[in-house]
């Protein structure tokens, strides 16, 4: 296991209000939690709980209205000061953001090459090695349009990791996959995490996925989003699909579901939808 350099995320009393003069929609209210370096943290919650808003604030696509977010004890985001998006907080997007007009290889190497960190040759070597290690070397010259959903997600994760981010942000990345492909790609992510551990900030509404992947789960309420509970998942790594039916897993699942069920019902009755994009 590689040593983890940095990547401690501290969220302190983060708040976000949309359109304060008009509709006054409170997306986040007083959200606080800590992520230690190299920890796999999953935020679970029903629609409208503000999890995407939180991710956007860390990534730099949106501003907080209050509170702060720190990375490695340095203030990253504050009220009305959004950080610029950067490779230190790489995002894997929900609907997929592989450039369809470039090959898989170009997609994977573009980050370090554009930033000037690596020369083209070095980047290609490193990319080939990484792709090879996870069994994706044959698709190098193909375009994303001819890949399956699961493959596209995997390539996008590899692209993100090529940039050696301090925090890897994943925005419900497996939402569009079918259940079988989903568990394969989840295991894929875990394998990569075991090889090169990074701080991971993963959001989802799938409880089983959350428990399967996480070291720590942050359960959020429906709008306005607050932290309901944090649960530690002390299932040992490496994990595979057998974990999904282990007693410890089911125990944690029971616990999480108890907390989240009433929130899910509230969201359902309120007709909540995701506001942030």
């Amino acid at each position, binding site marked *: 296991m590689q040593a983890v350099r940095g990547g401690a995320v501290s969220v302190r009393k983060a708040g976000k209000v949309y359109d304060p003069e008009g509709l006054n929609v409170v997306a986040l209210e007083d959200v606080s939690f800590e992520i230690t370096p190299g920890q796999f943290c999953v935020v679970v919650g029903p629609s409208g709980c503000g999890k995407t808003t939180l991710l956007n604030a860390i990534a730099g696509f949106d501003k907080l209205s209050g509170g702060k977010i720190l990375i490695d004890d340095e203030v990253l985001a504050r009220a009305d000061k959004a950080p610029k998006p950067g*490779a230190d907080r790489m995002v894997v997007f929900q*609907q997929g*953001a592989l450039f369809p007009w470039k090959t898989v290889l170009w997609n994977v190497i573009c980050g370090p090459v554009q930033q000037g960190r690596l020369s083209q040759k070095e980047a290609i070597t490193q990319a080939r090695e990484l792709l090879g290690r996870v069994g994706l070397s044959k698709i190098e010259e193909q*375009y994303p*349009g001819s890949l399956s959903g699961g493959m596209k997600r995997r390539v996008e994760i590899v*692209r993100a990791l090529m940039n050696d981010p301090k925090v890897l942000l994943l925005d419900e990345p497996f939402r569009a996959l079918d259940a079988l492909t989903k568990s394969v790609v989840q295991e894929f992510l875990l394998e990569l995490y075991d090889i090169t551990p990074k701080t991971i900030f993963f959001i989802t509404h799938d409880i089983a996925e959350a428990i399967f992947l996480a070291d720590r789960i942050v359960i959020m309420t429906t709008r306005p989003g607050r932290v309901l509970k944090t649960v530690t998942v002390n299932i040992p790594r490496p994990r595979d699909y057998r974990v999904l039916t282990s007693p410890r897993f089911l125990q944690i699942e029971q616990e999480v579901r108890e907390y989240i069920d009433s929130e899910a019902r509230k969201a359902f009755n309120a007709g909540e939808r995701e506001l942030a994009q």
Partner: protein
Amino acid sequence: METLVASTSETDIGITSSISWKIRVRRLLRSSRPYFAALGIGIFFVAWYLLVDVLKFWRFKELPGLVASVREWISLDPVYGVSLFTAKYYENIWASVYRVITAFVLATTSGIIIGVLMGWSRVFRALTFPLLEMLRPIPILAWIPLAILLLPGRETPIIGLTFLAAFFVTILNTLLGVRSIDEVYFRAARSLGFSEWAILFHVIVPGALPYIFVGLQIAMGACWFSLVASEIVSGQAGLGYKVWETYYSVQYETMVIIMATLGLLGYISSALVRMLGNRLMRWRTRILAGA
């Protein structure tokens, strides 16, 4: 019905599969398509022949007959001096084609550049968009007097008008193309640390290319349209001018020939643009198994 438009619409740009063309031709011949096409085209020509050559009722007797027109076209010594075998035919074709090519190239290069700038920079768009929207609704032909007035000589007004038509269309479609690019690609590029220029070259231009090529096809059609119109008004040679000349000198068979030639050239030029687009956008492959 779902495949109807993808394979035949004017704006289809490169949903090409990777099947070899030999297999495609074989499949085409086995399907019903060419036979219906023959039927349709046949009906058209039969109707023409019947109404004009044979029945000659009402106004149809004024029109040039199918047989006479075809005969004129393929004759070695045509009555009115224009057929597949005369130099005059090709002289006129070249005069028009030359103008179209010049205007098209100028209009599309400048149009794409301006369109991309407009899509990229809010300031630039705010400065140029109102002017564009004020000038665009004016029909191209309404510019003819100004063009003749302001531009020197005989060629320049014609090329200028043809340029104008293609120019507006290209800008518009390029602008739409840039705006159509999903925000997520910009976010990904920023996260990946792309400079603004890198975003321009690697996200904006390739992302807008499908729309740009639709625009180019429309622009080509617009070019021919304005070319013919301006040639009618102020030309001395060229297919548009010839159409009008044959009308005045009652050489209707030749007029039909010219019209058919125009149609053919228009189709070929659009097809060429489309094919170029297909090549440049190889990444738009049809996902055969539907993943």
